[in-house]
């Protein structure tokens, strides 16, 4: 142990307040400081998930690219070639790839979070840490996959000789938007599934419905005007449209983006509050 570390530890000891454990009934305490104190564990868990993910696969990390490529091709064939939906003059593969990127990101977080607490039962019943870092580490892993897949998008556009629009700089905003919605839903499903294992059974149907109500493999402009309001309620729809605008410059309805941001944020807040209030009981119930 070097001197700097010893001093750090010493300081930590001297400045640390005594820990008081007592029953809590406070609905608004989100204990964010606690989250910060456990950031290293958060990185380690995310790192573990990433490491373990492609172990004993022949292709390894290449799957992070292959998955979206497969989906892109399948959807482009079904919707572009067979159903012949319009693509506003862009190659249909770009429409489906941009949708698939966001959808994979979203579904990886939601599906991954739902079972994450149960598959980490041994950690939850043996060690204290803010439980929220388990689903959050899933989100971090998904973000990495999204990053890799976006390199693919970039490569494909260069190959097809299409320049990204200047609005690409706004992309992080839409990533945050989708992340909020996905993490919010992920927190709800993971906390619920601790007590009710039914969640894992219902989730695939829920995701299927969301999939078809989201313009993943088609442009929202093909939807008749009178049904558009449904898309206004779906934060993911706004996220995907925003993505396409940032990458390709396909025009969007701004009110929809606006609602999408609001909804995502509301979902996140509900998810966080619900989760943090239930997390104390996880070890007893799981």
């Amino acid at each position, binding site marked *: 142990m070097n001197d700097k570390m010893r001093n750090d530890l010493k300081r930590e*000891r001297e400045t640390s307040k005594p*820990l008081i454990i007592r029953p809590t009934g406070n609905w608004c305490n989100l204990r964010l400081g606690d989250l910060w104190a456990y950031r290293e564990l958060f990185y380690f868990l995310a790192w*573990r998930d990433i*490491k373990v993910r492609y172990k004993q696969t022949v292709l390894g990390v290449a799957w992070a690219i292959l998955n979206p490529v497969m989906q892109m091709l399948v959807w482009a064939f079904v919707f572009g070639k067979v159903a012949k939906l319009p693509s506003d003059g862009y190659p249909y593969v770009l429409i489906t790839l941009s949708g698939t990127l966001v959808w994979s990101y979203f579904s990886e977080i939601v599906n991954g979070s739902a079972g994450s607490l149960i598959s980490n039962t*041994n950690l939850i019943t*043996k060690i*204290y840490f803010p439980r929220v870092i388990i689903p959050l580490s899933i989100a971090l892993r998904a973000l990495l996959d999204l990053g890799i897949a976006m390199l693919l998008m970039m490569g494909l556009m260069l190959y097809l000789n299409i320049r990204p629009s200047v609005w690409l700089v706004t992309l992080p905003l839409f990533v945050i938007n989708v992340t909020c919605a996905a993490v919010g839903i992920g927190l709800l499903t993971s906390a619920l599934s601790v007590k009710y294992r039914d969640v894992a059974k219902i989730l695939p149907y829920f995701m299927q419905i969301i999939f078809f109500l989201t313009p993943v493999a088609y442009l929202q402009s093909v939807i008749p005007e009178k049904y558009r309001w449904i898309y206004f309620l779906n934060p993911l729809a706004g996220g995907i449209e925003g993505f396409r605008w940032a990458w390709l410059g396909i025009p969007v309805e701004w009110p929809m983006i606006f609602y999408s941001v609001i909804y995502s944020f509301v979902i996140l807040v509900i998810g966080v509050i619900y989760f943090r209030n239930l997390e*104390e009981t996880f070890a*007893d*119930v799981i």
Partner: protein
Amino acid sequence: MSRTIIKVNNLGKSYRIGEIIRHDTLRDAASHLFSRAFRRSPSRKHDSDVIWALDSVNFEVQQGEVVGIIGRNGAGKSTLLKILSRITMPTQGQATIEGRVGSLLEVGTGFHPELTGRENVYLNGAILGMKKLEIKNKFDEIVDFSGVDKFIDTPIKRYSSGMYLRLAFAVAAHLEPEILLVDEVLAVGDIDFQRKCLNKMKVIGQGGRTVLFVSHNMPAVTRLCSRVILFDKGRKAEDGSPHAVVGAYLKSDIGTSAQREWKMPAKAPGNEVVRLNAVRVCTEDGRTTESIDIRKPVCIEMEYDVLESNQVLVPNYHIFNDEGICVFITTDCSNDWSRKPRPKGHYLSRVRIPGNFLSEGCLIVNVAICTMIPVRIHFHEADAVAFHVVDSLDGNSARGDYGGDYPGVVRPLLEWTTQYNKAFD
């Protein structure tokens, strides 16, 4: 001058019985609600049944104390440790802890089979609350201690269970919190490993750190701890010097009695293969008894249900004396069921210990059922029952006419012969 480092004040944790009978699915929850709505009065009463796993517990621990926590299963020891390590929340009261807490409720928590030994050391270290830099600095020491250095870059799914345990304990042993909470970690592994663990624990204790140590291993508790707290049914029963408290535990009914039954299958020791129903100590004619005449045989019987057919099961008893020494182990080698797969059903296995064999004093019985090929322990219930062996000093026991202190782990009445040659002259 030592300072108070843990202060437990009126601490309690309750579970509603309704919570223990879990509603794992929405349908269960719905049907429960439904039945509650229609059978209001009886189920209401049922719902108000509350079990206090820990009830109004008060104590203080000074810096540098090594405190043993003992008590039979379900006495609240583990609940206390879980509350102090913040895994579950108390229902009432509070605990104040000053200093960095490291809890070791299990070794190898979070070990991932796909990761290499090296990666798992880092991961497990982080899970136990070490900083990355701290792990890095101690890495060589940890690997050295574990003795698996050759395999450190091999995924641990290829490790033997012994290597796995050694590596896991090595990480845990290098945790340097001011307060260490340890739960029965030493109950695993071979004798060598256990000795290594105990020595390490001793070093930790001597280093001035505060340790709370839950264990069933009475010799270990008396050797390591400077103070012992006994729990019974969620309450603190005794608190004092190790010898006094351990002695009180072993001799009292709290520790054990001659008969135990498990009425609720969910709580009974066992697994999907076999489940223990009852254990009792009785005389040869089947009368349950707590004290046995040293000259008379004593029988120990266990009742159990075999839930899965075609398993070869070997019931066994481990008999300990009140100093924690294993007097003997006896396994069922009779021709009835040994090496024969058993059909499902209810069984009663009884062993007869002959008279004039055991020493006077308190004897504690651990009960287990195993399968030998391959070795699998279906359950092992420590301190299941106990009984006293008494000598009424009638002069026909092994001690003869001597009434004083008569040491020895066993006291067989052996056959003596004396050759006599008539003296010359």
